[in-house]
C-alpha cells in the first residue's frame, strides 16, 4: 500500500487545542514538516512565546523552552550563542513580537543573530481575549478598540517585514498568508528557506504568516479567511522582502558587469 499522506514526525501525538479555523495549528505543522524534511528535528530548539501558542512545546517534537512575553529573540540568542550547532526558532505572535518584544526583535535582526523567527500575525491579542495588537488594521474592531482602530487614537499598524527590511542584518524576510492551499504551500517554502538560511550560517531570518483568529475576530473560520484576503493582504502584501541569496547573486553579477 502506498502511503499518500502521513503525519510528520516533527509533531508529537498530543492533540492541538486551538480553536477551529485557527492558523497556529497550520503554522506548527509547516514548521514540523520543514524540521523533518531538513533532518534537524533532533537538533532544533523551539522558543515558545506567551500567547495562544504557549503550548507549542507539547506539539512539536523537538526541544523547547518557554520564556517571558516578547523575549523570544533574546532567549534564542542565548541558546544559539551557547550551542551554535542548534537550530533555534522563536515562534511569536504579534503582541509578543511587535509590541512588548519590539526591541528584542529589531536588535536580534540588526545583530543578524543566526536564528529563525516564525511570526504569526493575526492582528489581535488572541490569548488575552481579543485586544488591539500593533498589527491590528485600521477600522478593525477589537475589545480595546470597540469602535474600530483609528489612526488618530491608536496609531497605525506596523508592517514588520517592511520595517526590518532596512536593517543590514536581516538576511531573509518573507510574508505569506494561511488563507488558502497555494499560499500555505508558499508559506512552507519560505519557512524552509528561513531554516536553510540559519543552517548555512547566513544570519537572521523571519517568516511572517498572516493567520486567522476566528474566535477573537468574532467570525466563522470561512469569514476569517475572507478577511485575510480582503483586509489583511492589501495592508500586508505577500512576498520576499530580503533574500541574502538573491542579494549575493546580484552583487556578483554587478561585479562581473564592471
Amino acid at each position, binding site marked *: 500500500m502506498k502511503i499518500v499522506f502521513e503525519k510528520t514526525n516533527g509533531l508529537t501525538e498530543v492533540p492541538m487545542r486551538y480553536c477551529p479555523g485557527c492558523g497556529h495549528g497550520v503554522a506548527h505543522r509547516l514548521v514540523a514538516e520543514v524540521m523533518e524534511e531538513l533532518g534537524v528535528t*533532533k*537538533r532544533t*530548539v523551539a*522558543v*515558545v512565546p506567551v500567547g495562544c501558542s*504557549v503550548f507549542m*512545546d507539547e506539539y512539536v*517534537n*523537538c*526541544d*523547547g*523552552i*518557554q*520564556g*517571558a512575553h516578547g*523575549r523570544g529573540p*533574546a*532567549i*534564542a*540568542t*542565548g*541558546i*544559539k*550563542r*551557547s*550551542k551554535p*550547532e*542548534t537550530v*533555534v526558532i522563536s515562534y511569536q505572535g504579534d503582541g509578543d513580537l511587535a509590541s512588548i518584544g519590539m*526591541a*528584542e526583535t529589531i*536588535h536580534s535582526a540588526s545583530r543578524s543573530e543566526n536564528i529563525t523567527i516564525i511570526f504569526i500575525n493575526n492582528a489581535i491579542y488572541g490569548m488575552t481575549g481579543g485586544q488591539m495588537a500593533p498589527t491590528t488594521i485600521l477600522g478593525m474592531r477589537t475589545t480595546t478598540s470597540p469602535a474600530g482602530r483609528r489612526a488618530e487614537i491608536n496609531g497605525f499598524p506596523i508592517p514588520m517585514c517592511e520595517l526590518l527590511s532596512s536593517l543590514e542584518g536581516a538576511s531573509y524576510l518573507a510574508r505569506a498568508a494561511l488563507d488558502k492551499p497555494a499560499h500555505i504551500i508558499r508559506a512552507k517554502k519560505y519557512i524552509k528557506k528561513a531554516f536553510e538560511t540559519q543552517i548555512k550560517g547566513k544570519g537572521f531570518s523571519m517568516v511572517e504568516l498572516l493567520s486567522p483568529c476566528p474566535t477573537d475576530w468574532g467570525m466563522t473560520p470561512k469569514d476569517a479567511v475572507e478577511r485575510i484576503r480582503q483586509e489583511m493582504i492589501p495592508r500586508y502584501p505577500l512576498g520576499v522582502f530580503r533574500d541574502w541569496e538573491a542579494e549575493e547573486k546580484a552583487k556578483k553579477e554587478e561585479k562581473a558587469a564592471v
Partner: protein
Amino acid sequence: MAEKTLMKGNEALAEGAVRAGCRFFAGYPITPQNEVPEYMSWRLPQEGGFFIQAESEVAAINMLFGAASTGIRVMTSSSSPGISLKQEGISYCAGADLPIFYANVVRGGPGLGNIAPAQSDYFQATRGGGHGDYRVFVMAPNSVSEMANFPKRCYDVAFKYRVPSMILADGILGQMMEPVEFDFEPVDPSSFPEPDWAIGGDASGRERRVVKSYDLRPGRLEEWNKERAKRFERIEAEEVDWDGEGLDDCELLITSYGSCSRISKSAVKMAREDGLPVGLLRPITLYPFPKKAYQDLAKRVKNILVVEMSLGQFIEDVQLSVLGKVPIHFHGRPAGGIPTAEEIYDIVRKIMGK
C-alpha cells in the same frame, strides 16, 4: 596560587566568575558596575566563552535564560535600576529551575537615585525580587578577595539546587582596589557532565526536553513549588555562612553585612581598645540568613545594634531571628550616606551608658 594581585572589585568579580567556569555574559552598561561587562568583553573570548552587550537589561536576562537552558555557567551584572528590570527574567529562571548567577553592585535609590554606594536593595535581593514564591541564594562580600572568590560558591549552590544565585555588593566594593588571592583553582567547565535537563545541541541520543516555568494542570504547579521549597529548606540547612569577632564575651552585638561590616569592625576595634565588650556578627549569606547564630547570641548579649546603608531592611531579618528577645537598635544611612566608625562608636557608647 597564593600569589596576590591588585584588582578592582568589579574586575575581581568578573575574573572570579570566569575562573569559576562562566562562559556566557550578557549585560547592559550602568554605573558603578561597568568594569564587569568591560572586563568580560575581552576576557571571555580568551576562554572560548561569549560576551554580548544586550539592548537592555530585559534582553540581557532573557539571553541568560536561553544560555542557562543549555546547561552552561552564565552571568549578568548590573546596578539597582537594571536589576529591577531583570526581575521578571530572574523569576522565569527560578520558575524553570535554571541555575544562573548575577551581581547587583548597588547604588542609591529609589528611582534613578545616585551612583553612590548603598545597601537599599536588600529586600529585593533576599525576598526573591520578582513575582512568585522563590528565593535567590545571596552572598554579601566585604572585600575584593571575596568579590573574586564568591562567584564559585554561587555557581556551586546554583547548580546543586537549580536556583538563581547572586552577589549583593555596592559601589565601594565595586570600585575599590585591594590585593586578591583566589582560594580555588580555575575550573574547566568542559569537564562537567552535561546536566540531564539541558536543551539544545545534538539530542539524538535522548528524549526531547522542555524548559519552562508554567503548568496549568490543576495542582501541578503547587506540587512543583513545594518541591522547590524543599530545595530552599536544604539551602537554609546547609549553605548558611557568617563571620564574627568578639562574640565570646560581647555584651553589645553590632551586626552589618557587606562593606558596612568593615566600618562596623573598626567601631568594634575602637570599643575594644577602650575595654568595652562589643562584638560583630556579619552574615556572609543573606539568604539563607544565619538565624541560628543570632538566636544563640540573643541568649547572651544585652543589646544588638544593626548598622546598614539603608533606612532599615536588613534589620528585619535580625528582628525575625531574635524575635524580641533582645533590644535592637538601629543606625541606617540611605542613598549614598556612609556611616563612619566614629558615629557608630558614639551610638555604642550611648547604648552602653559609657
